[in-house]
Every structure is written in C-alpha cells, then in structure tokens.
C-alpha cells in the first residue's frame, strides 16, 4: 500500500532524516531553539500518524512481508534496497514512532545547549531505527543497524552526564565489536545461501549444522550485546546513567529491542538446529540475567541505574520466551518487548521529570514527593506497578505468557524465572517507598507538579499501559500469524498447539 503513492516504509525511514536536514539552517540562527523544538515535534507526530497507516493497511492474517519494496541498490554482490514488514516489525515500528514525540517533549527543558543538533541527531536516529525494523535485505539491515550508533554516540557523548565520555565510548565499542561478527556471518550466509542478501530467500535454504553453529554464535554476539544478555550487559548501566533522558528512553525502549528482534527475525528461522542446540546456554544466560539484574537493581542508589538493571532483568524474560519455541513463549516475549518499551520508557521519563527539577537521581535525596507532586506521584506509582507485573497493567500479560511457555519447557526454568517477578516487586516498591512515600523534607529545590510537556509525554503512555493490560489481544492478534509461521520454521513438524487461544477467549 502506498500513501499518496509514496512507498510508506521508505517515507517512514527518510522523512525524519530529511526533516533533520531541514533543521540545518537553524544552527546559525540565534534564539531558534523553540522553533526547532516545535518543528521536531511536528515531524515526529506526522511520522507517528503516517505509521498508523501501517496498522490500518496491514493484513494481520498473513505472515508474508507487507508493504514490500525492492530495488537494486549496489550492482555488485547483488545488494538490494528491500523493505517489508510482518506483524512483529509492525508493532515495533509503531512503538518507535509513538515514543519519539515523547523523547522530544522530555528534552524541552532538559536540553539547553546545541538544541538544533540534538534534534537532528534524534531525528536521524529515528529514521535509522525504523530502517532496522523494515529492512529485508541483510546489508541494508546492517547499514541501519550500525548507522544508528553514530547519533546515539553523539547523544550520550555530547548531552550526557559527567562521566559521559567513558560511557559513550564503551557503548560504541561494545556494540561495534558485536556487530562486526554479524557482518561476517552475513557474508558467509551469502555464499552458503545462494548468493543473495534477501532475508526471506536466505530463510528458505538449509545450512549444514556446523555452519549453523558458527553463524549462530556470530549473530548471538551481536544481538546479545544489544539486548544486553547477562555477561555482555555492563555497558548498559553506564550508558543509561550518563545519557540524557531522551537517550535513555530510546536506548531502553527501542535499541534493546533490536537484539531480541534480531533473534526472532534471523537466528531462529535461519538456524533452527543451532537455535535448539544452544537453547540451554540461552536459558542459563537469561535466568542469570533475570536474577542478577534484579539483585543488582536492589542494590542501587541511583534511580536510572536501578531501572537500567531492571531492564537487564526484564530482557531476560524476552530471550527466555523466544527460546522456549512455543507460541505463548514467543508471543509473550514480543509482548514483553513492547511492554518493556512503554513502561521502562515511561519510568525513564519520570526520572527525567525529577532530574530536571533537582539535578539528582539519588534515592537518598528524595522522599515524600507524593505530598508536593501528587499527580506525578500517581503516574510514577502506576508505571512502577506496571513494571513489577501487576495484573491488569500491561507487563503482566507478557511475563505471564513467557512464564507459561517456560513452565511448558521445564518446570525448573519457570520457577527460577518467577523469582525475577518477586524481586521486581521488591526493587520497584523499594524505589517507591524511598521516593514517593515517607517524610517530605524541603530542600533547596522546588518541586512543582508536572508541566504541559511532561503531561504530553506521560499521558499517552499511561493510556497504553492500562489499555494493553486490559486488551492485550489487540496486539496479540497482529502477531499471531507471524509468530505461528516462525514456530513452523523452527519446528516444521510440531503441531501449533497454543494456549494463547484459550487465554484470549
């Protein structure tokens, strides 16, 4: 489908990038910050509305790639400009476009220097991120995957906290080192898989077990760093703490999802045997991540660090769900990706709200803010409850489905994973008790309640948190066809027994 006869996916990728170029003339102007911010809001909102046409025009009943585009890009080695989305990438794209206006709202006060450049970086980043989810040619995917690093490197490094340089270089080198192995695997796939970089065509091939193992490890390195899985997670707390709020939101909500998306899109369908072979390893690392991340979160004084470690824990559920290879596990994992994106994004926005007022993220500096910021406190409580998996809010459904899948795989895995939820309740309630409740001591700073930009950034997320908690089917129905197809690719002979159906009725 096209929108005004413009191919919609290309439009979604290049509109923000062109928008960023249009901001260039403002760099030399004085007092243009406000205009630039409003233009950026306009661009991201138009982008979001345009992405809704995917929801309207997309067919949820098929696993096939929709809105496909295909052009020859580089006439050597058969590199194409191929775009296309299925249900999984569709929800991730819409989530991305939804979060971007909020990132700009939250930067309204927080970003004071070089505003134009900041907005340009954010917009370029948005285009690249959508490109990652929409690319159906492996080289194109890789180009977007790495190009994303440049604006993020600058966002953390230029607008970040005091230790930003260390954090951003660590972030960059970790992800780059992982990604380079992905590049090798892509090239090797080209020669094994019939001289093409087309992802769908590559999935149709059969690869020898040895090749599958090596290629799986190469892909694993790239995606595990991005997610981040347990031993590769050390860049995340640093990057989160130092990044400006918008950067943290993008990192947590979108970029972490790309690793999981990579597993779902590439590792599983391309290397089904290797995926099964390495299941044990992934389970072990996921459980380690769930428990270790939660324990680390308990020990943090810095709010951003606490949420960053909780991300490690939550993303453990995602990888666990992906590798149990049943419908509820994978659907739960994707749901958890979206939920984590929304909830953790909202939590980082909340920390941003506090930080803009106090310039402190330490738990010990707060207490009893419910008395002075009642509305904000309510929001923070709801998002925290969502994060700890309260039934009726969004995260519950995803985690529940993952646990269901995990118990079906092995009871012990299910039990161990469940401890993550208990620990999540502990650290989130601990956060609330230190910040929201308790005795309020007036300090040198003033704590007015939320302004309109903060409202604009948090309210839509609140609606989604509640709506997805009550109506998860809206999302699940979009995923069903794609996920079933995926399970079929991994287990060609297994009956698609699904408990999800029962859950929905």
């Amino acid at each position, binding site marked *: 489908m096209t929108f005004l006869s413009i191919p919609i996916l290309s439009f979604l990728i290049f509109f923000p990038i062109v928008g960023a170029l249009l901001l260039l003339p403002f*760099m030399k102007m004085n007092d243009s910050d406000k205009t630039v911010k409003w233009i950026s809001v306009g661009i991201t909102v138009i982008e979001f509305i345009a992405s809704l046409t995917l929801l309207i025009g997309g067919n949820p009943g098929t696993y096939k790639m929709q809105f496909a585009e295909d052009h*020859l*890009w*580089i*006439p*050597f*080695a058969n590199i194409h400009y191929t775009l296309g989305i299925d249900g999984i990438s569709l929800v991730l794209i819409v989530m991305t476009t939804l979060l971007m206006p909020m990132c700009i709202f939250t930067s309204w006060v927080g970003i004071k220097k070089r505003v134009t450049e900041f907005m340009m970086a954010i917009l370029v980043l948005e285009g690249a991120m959508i490109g990652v989810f929409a690319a159906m040619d492996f*080289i194109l995917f*890789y*180009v*977007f995957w*790495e*190009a994303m*690093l*440049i604006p993020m*490197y*600058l966002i953390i*490094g*230029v607008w970040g906290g005091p230790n*930003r*340089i260390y954090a*951003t*270089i660590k972030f*960059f*080198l970790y992800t*780059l*080192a992982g990604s*380079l*192995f992905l*590049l*090798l695997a892509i*090239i*090797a796939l*080209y*020669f094994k898989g019939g001289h093409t970089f087309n992802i769908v065509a590559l999935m149709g091939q059969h690869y020898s077990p040895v090749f599958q193992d090596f290629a799986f490890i190469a892909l694993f390195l790239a995606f595990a760093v991005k997610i981040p899985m347990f031993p590769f997670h050390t860049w995340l707390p640093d990057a989160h703490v130092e990044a400006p709020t918008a950067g943290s939101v993008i990192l947590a909500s979108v970029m972490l999802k790309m690793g999981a998306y990579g597993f779902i899109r590439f590792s599983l369908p391309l290397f089904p045997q290797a995926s099964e072979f390495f299941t044990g390893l992934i389970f072990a690392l996921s459980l380690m991540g769930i428990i270790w991340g939660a324990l680390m979160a308990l020990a943090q004084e810095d709010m951003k660090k606490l949420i960053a470690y909780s991300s490690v824990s939550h993303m453990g559920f995602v990888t666990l769900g992906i590798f149990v290879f049943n419908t509820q596990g994978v659907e739960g994992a994707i749901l958890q990706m979206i939920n984590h994106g929304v909830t953790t994004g909202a939590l980082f926005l909340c920390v941003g709200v506090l930080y803009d007022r106090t310039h402190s993220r330490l738990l010990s500096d707060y207490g009893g803010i419910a008395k002075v910021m009642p509305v904000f406190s309510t929001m923070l409580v709801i998002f925290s409850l969502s994060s700890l998996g309260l039934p009726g809010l969004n995260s519950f459904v995803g985690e529940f489905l993952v646990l269901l899948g995990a118990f079906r795989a092995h009871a012990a895995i299910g039990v161990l994973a469940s401890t993550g939820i208990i620990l999540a309740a502990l650290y989130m309630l601990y956060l609330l008790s230190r910040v929201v409740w308790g005795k309020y001591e007036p300090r040198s700073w003033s704590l007015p309640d939320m302004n309109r930009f903060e409202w604009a950034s948090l309210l839509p997320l609140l609606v989604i948190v509640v709506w997805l908690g009550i109506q998860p089917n809206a999302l699940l129905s979009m995923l069903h066809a794609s996920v079933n197809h995926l399970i079929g690719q991994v287990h060609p002979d297994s009956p698609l027994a699904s408990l999800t159906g029962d859950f929905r009725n």
Partner: protein
Amino acid sequence: MSFSLVNILGTMPEIYLTFFGCIILILDTMVPNEKRSWLAYFTIASLVFAMIASYGLNGKGLPLYQGLYIIDPFSNFFKMTIYVAAIITVLFSLPYLDQEDIHIGEYYAFILFSTVGMMVMVSAGDLITLFLGIELMSLCFYVMVGLKRGSERSVEASFKYFLLGAFSAAIFLFGISFLYGATGTETLSGIAAFAANPGSLKPMILLGIVLTLVGFAFKISAAPFHMWTPDVYEGAPTVVTGFMATASKIAAFGVFLRVFWVSFSSDRHDWNILIIVLSILSMMVGNVVALRQTNIKRMLAYSSIGHAGYAAMALLLPNRESLFALMFYVFVYMFMTLGAFGIVLMLRKSGVEGEEISDLVGLHHKHPAAAFLMLIFMFSLAGIPPFGGFLAKFYVFFAVIHAGYTWLAVIGILFAAIGAYYYIRIVMVMYMKDPETSVDFNISSMGRIGLLLTAGVTVFLGVYPAPFVEYIKSSLAIFIP
C-alpha cells in the same frame, strides 16, 4: 623499437603532463610571487586535460611499445584515481603553501612529474618500466617531503625517506635481476609464461618474488616495512603527506596487483602466506600503535598502515570479487584520507600548524562545519555505515571470505573493532570536550571545494554507490585467469 603513431597516442596523457610540468618550470621564472596561485590553476587545468585524454583511451586494451607499456581499463581506473588525488591536493595547497612559506613553482611541477611516475607504474608491462615509474615518483617525493627547508623535521623526514627508499629500491632491483636471470625476460607476460613451468629454476623465481614483494610492501607501507611512514608523514608538509598517503599508495597497489596476478599467479601458493603475514602485521601495527598517538599526522600514518593491511587482503585470490574489492577500497580510501589530511592542514594554532590531537579539542564550538566533515572522515575510516569506508571494508571481507579465508576475516574484524577507538576518539575530542586552546581554521574557496568534494564523495559512496560501482565494474580488467 618502433615509434609508431599508436604508441605515441596511447601515451599522450603522460606526455601532456610531462610537457605541462616543464611549462610550469618555465612559467615559474616569469610569474611574480603574488601571482603564484595562477600556477595552481594551471596545474589543475593540465590534470583535467590529461584526465580527459585518459578518458578518451578508456576501454582500449593496448599493449604499447611491444608490451612494455599497457593501456587497459584497469590502468585507466588507477590513473583516474591518481588524477583526482592530485587535483584535490592542489586544491588544498593554496593557502597552506603560503602560510608555510614554501610556495614555489617547482612544487606544482613535482606534483605533475610524480603523477607521471605513478601513471607509468600502473601502466607498466615490464619490470624495468615499472622501476622507472617508481623512481620517477619517489625522486619527486624525496624533494617534496623536504620542501620545508627551514624545518628540521621536514629535512630529517626527507633524508630518512630517501635513504630507506633507496634501500628498498635496491632490494627491488635485486629481485628483478633474479627474475631476469631465471627467465631471460622482464616483461610481465614473459615471466608469467616461464614461472608457470620453471623447472629447477623455481628457487630463483621465488627469491625474486620475495624481494619484489619487499619493494612493494615498502611503497604501500605495509608492516614490517612501515618504519619510515610515521616519521615521514609527520615531517612532510601536510599537503605532501596527503598526496603520498593516497596517490603513491594507490599506484603501488595497482602495480602490486598486476605484477603478482599476472606474473606470479602460478606461484600463488608460495606467496599467499607472505601476503597474509603482511596484512595481519599491518592491521596489528596500524590499529594498535595508532591508539597511543598524540599527533594526528602520526595517527593517520598508522591508520594508513592499517588500511594497507586491509587492502592487501584482497590480493589473495584472483577473482572478480577481490579485484573489485581492491579497486573500491583504494577509491574510497583516497577520498576519506585526503579529506582528513585536508582538515588537519587547515588547522592553525597561532600561525603554526595545529597537528596535535589536543588542538582539535572543541573544534565543534568554533567551526561546526569543519568538525562535521572530520566526523564523516573519521567514521568512514573506521568503517561505520552509511559512509564509503564501510562498503570498502565490506567488499574486502566479502572477497576474503569468498576466497575461503574466513579466519583471516575474523582477525581483520577484531582489529577493525580495536581501531575504531582511535577514530571515534577524534570525534569525542571535537564534540565532547570544551575548547581550551584557540585554534583557527583557515579555509580558502579552493580548499572548500576540495573538502566538499572529498566529504561528498565519501558520503555518496556509502549511500548511493551505484554509479561508481558501475564504473569500477567496467574497469575490471581482463587479466583474471
């Protein structure tokens, strides 16, 4: 030897440039000092003229002078690349030479003469012709490196380069003499025919191969024959460094590939291991030692050693992929490296060249455009998409994996990850630190054209490389077995 018309016509571009070089030497005595810039315009015009002449010869596969000289699409591609490098170098020279007080007419003549030397190199069909080309180029560079007569560093660099260059030339000649002794011929095709069936003379051929390899490795500054590079690059006037780091290396790569693929292809299994060792060592030295540099010219010198290691990997197996990879690599490398040197030479710190990395601190504050262009060059050199450097590295790894050396690609990847650090450190210094020293950025309109050209092509090659790819594909020469 017959001097038929076709031979003369085929070498017209070389003849033009030699002629124009002589004209410049004559004009130099007549042009007043303040009008020196006219010589620069004249140089550019003559390079463009030669370029058009070369373009006219495109697509003709001609062995001239009984096979001593070869005009084919392959050599034409390298000549085009060298012309562009020379033109950009002249674009960068203008304010720089005046500031350094070395604006003399001979500089332009030497640029043209060394260009002729490189053209002879890439067109050589015979080892003696090749040697003449190398020497013509090198002699011009010995002089240009030492152009800053008042500067100790420059003179030292020139002397060092001269001694080591003479040494490597001697080794190279020694290799040629072995080959000649064994085969009785110096033409590449003649050696190839003999080397396919050497009989008991094989050890002599191998000795010849190793010695010529040393000569080439010196010219492309591959480790362990790289020792001269950092000192010479640091001491030479920065415009000359840029020209050396790009054009001379590109020419050396072109002829390296031709000699080894045409003449020695039957001994491939004997010399492949040498190329592998050479490229691993270069990647290691280039990427690891660069981490510790504080002088940006030295850092770029090590970076160029590392890049030589990557490009050398493409020599391993003669197929279209490797050939394409090497040609694409040198093409991209030329633009991004020249651009980076261009930025460096325009930095001025209280009248002297700002060539320490610390001089770049906070460049973004004062000169956002310059900082942004440098960011493009650095990310491109690091091989990050969407810039040309990424595709260059990609095609090299593509060729290496195609040739079955996946483990070598893994090593290359590891060093690329290490090397990324010192490139992004430059970006960090420019963007994320507050300015301490005041550095000026001196740009002329010609320099601006040069920078926009290099940066533009670097981006273009990464985003929409199709036209360039088509051009390179059309230049893939016929000599692949």
